[in-house]
C-alpha cells in the first residue's frame, strides 16, 4: 500500500548515479569549504579596506594623519627625543620640525635649533637661533627677525642683563640691546643666560610629534593594508595566494552548482518516472 504522506527526497539505491565518482565530489566540497574558511579573514579585510578606499575623498583619508607610536615604529620611523626647550618667563620656546614654537604653537620658520630665549618687558619674547634672533609678541606674532646685519655677531647665547635688557653672547663678546632692541652695546656685567630645561610632559609630547613630521596618511596605511605591504615582504605574496584561492573558490563553486543542478534534474526525472510506473 502506498503511503499518502510526502516522501523525503532521499536518493534510493536505485536512483541514477552522477557521472562523476561520489568521492571526488565530496572531496571537492570539503576543499571548497576549507579554502573558503581559510581566506574568509582576507575577504573581510579586502572588502572593508576596499570600501573605505573607494570613498577616500569623502572620508578625507588622504588628509587624516596617523601618528600612533607603534604604527610609526612599524613603518621604520626611529623614535625621536623632544628637542631642547627654553623657559622665557612663563612661556616656553623650542624648535621642532624646522619651526620655532612658542609654547605649543609654531610661530616662525627656524633654520636650526633654538639656542635660548628670554622674556622682556611687555611680554615680548626673544628667541636666539644660530643666525638670527626672533622677537615675538605675547600672542606669537613675529615682531622682527634680527639677521646678521642687525646683530653684533652670530648668536651663541641669549639672556637678560641685570637691568632686564636683552643680552646676546657672540664670538665677538657679550652685548646688551637698547630698550628699542635696535642698537647693541658691549655688556658691562655677565648676564643671566638662558639654559635648556625639561619642558612639561604635554609640551614634550607635542614637540616630539612635531619633530616626527606629519605622520602617515590613513589612505597610505589602508592601501598598504589592502595590498598586503603592511605585513612585510611576504604580505603581497599572501594576497596573491589569496587571490588565486578566490579564483579556485569561484570555479569550484560553479562546478558544485553545476553538479547539484544536474543531479537534481536527474532525481526529478527519476521520481517522475517512478510515479508514472506506480
Amino acid at each position, binding site marked *: 500500500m502506498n503511503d499518502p504522506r510526502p516522501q523525503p527526497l532521499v536518493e534510493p539505491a536505485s536512483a541514477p548515479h552522477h557521472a562523476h565518482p561520489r568521492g571526488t565530489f565530496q572531496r571537492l566540497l570539503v576543499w571548497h569549504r576549507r579554502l573558503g574558511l581559510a581566506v574568509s579573514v582576507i575577504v573581510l579585510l579586502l572588502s572593508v579596506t576596499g570600501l573605505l578606499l573607494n570613498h577616500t575623498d569623502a572620508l578625507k583619508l588622504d588628509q587624516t594623519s596617523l601618528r600612533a607610536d607603534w604604527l610609526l615604529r612599524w*613603518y*621604520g*620611523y*626611529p623614535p*625621536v627625543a623632544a628637542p631642547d626647550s627654553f623657559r622665557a618667563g612663563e612661556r616656553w620656546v623650542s624648535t621642532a*620640525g*624646522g619651526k620655532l614654537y612658542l609654547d605649543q604653537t609654531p610661530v*616662525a*620658520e627656524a*633654520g*636650526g635649533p633654538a639656542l635660548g630665549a628670554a622674556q622682556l618687558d611687555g611680554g615680548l619674547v626673544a628667541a636666539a637661533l644660530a*643666525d638670527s634672533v626672533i622677537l615675538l*609678541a605675547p600672542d606669537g*606674532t*613675529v*615682531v*622682527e*627677525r*634680527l*639677521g*646678521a*646685519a*642687525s646683530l653684533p655677531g652670530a648668536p651663541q647665547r641669549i639672556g637678560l642683563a641685570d637691568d632686564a635688557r636683552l643680552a646676546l653672547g657672540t664670538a665677538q663678546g657679550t652685548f646688551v640691546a637698547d630698550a*628699542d632692541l*635696535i*642698537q647693541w652695546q658691549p655688556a658691562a656685567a655677565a648676564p643671566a643666560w638662558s639654559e635648556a630645561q625639561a619642558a612639561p610632559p604635554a609640551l614634550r609630547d607635542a614637540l616630539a610629534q612635531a*619633530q*616626527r*613630521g*606629519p605622520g602617515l596618511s590613513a589612505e597610505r596605511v589602508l592601501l*598598504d593594508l589592502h595590498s598586503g*605591504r603592511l605585513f*612585510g*615582504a611576504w*604580505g603581497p605574496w599572501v594576497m596573491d595566494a589569496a587571490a588565486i584561492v578566490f579564483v579556485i573558490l569561484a570555479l569550484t563553486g560553479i562546478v558544485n552548482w553545476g553538479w547539484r543542478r544536474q543531479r537534481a534534474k536527474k532525481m526529478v526525472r527519476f521520481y517522475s518516472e517512478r510515479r508514472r510506473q506506480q
Partner: protein
Amino acid sequence: MKALFRSAVLLLSLVSAPAPAADVYLAPEKFLSETFDGSVPKASVLWIAGDTRAAVERILGHSAVALRVRYWQQDARSAWILEEIGKTEPITTGFVVDKGALARVAVLVYRESRGWEVRYPFFTDQFKGATLTNMNELDRGIDGIAGATLSVRALTRLARVALLLDATSRAGAKR
C-alpha cells in the same frame, strides 16, 4: 617592504633635515658698508601697520611675516634687507632706494636649490631706476629667467615692498 622602509626613512630625513645650506653671496654687513661708503648709519625701524601692512600683504600675496622692519637711512638714500620665500626657502635680498627709485638690488643669501641666476647683474640691473606706480606696481617690466620663475617673482615682489616701505618711511619723516 624595503622600499616602504626606504620611503619612510627618506620622508623622515626630509622632515627632519636641517635647512639647506645657505649660499652667502654678499654678507649683509658688507652690503650696508658698500651702500654707505663704509659709514653705516644707525638702524631705524618701521612698524608695518594699517594701510601699509595691507598694501604689503597685497604685494606679497600672504600675510606680512613681521610687525616691524629695520632699515638704514642717510639723506634720501635708504637700505632695506628683506626676505621672501621663492619656492620653499627665504631669499635674503638687499635693496637701496635713492630718492624713491631703486638704486641697487643685491641677492645676499640664497637658500633655494635652483633659481640662483637671479643673483647676477644681468637680472638685478633691470631694477635700477625703477619706481612705484600709484597701484604699487613697478613702472617697468622685469624679464624673467627660465628655470628661476619663482625666485624672479619673489625678488620683484620684494622690490615693490622696498619701494613702498621707503615711501612710507619718508612720508612718516615728513610728518
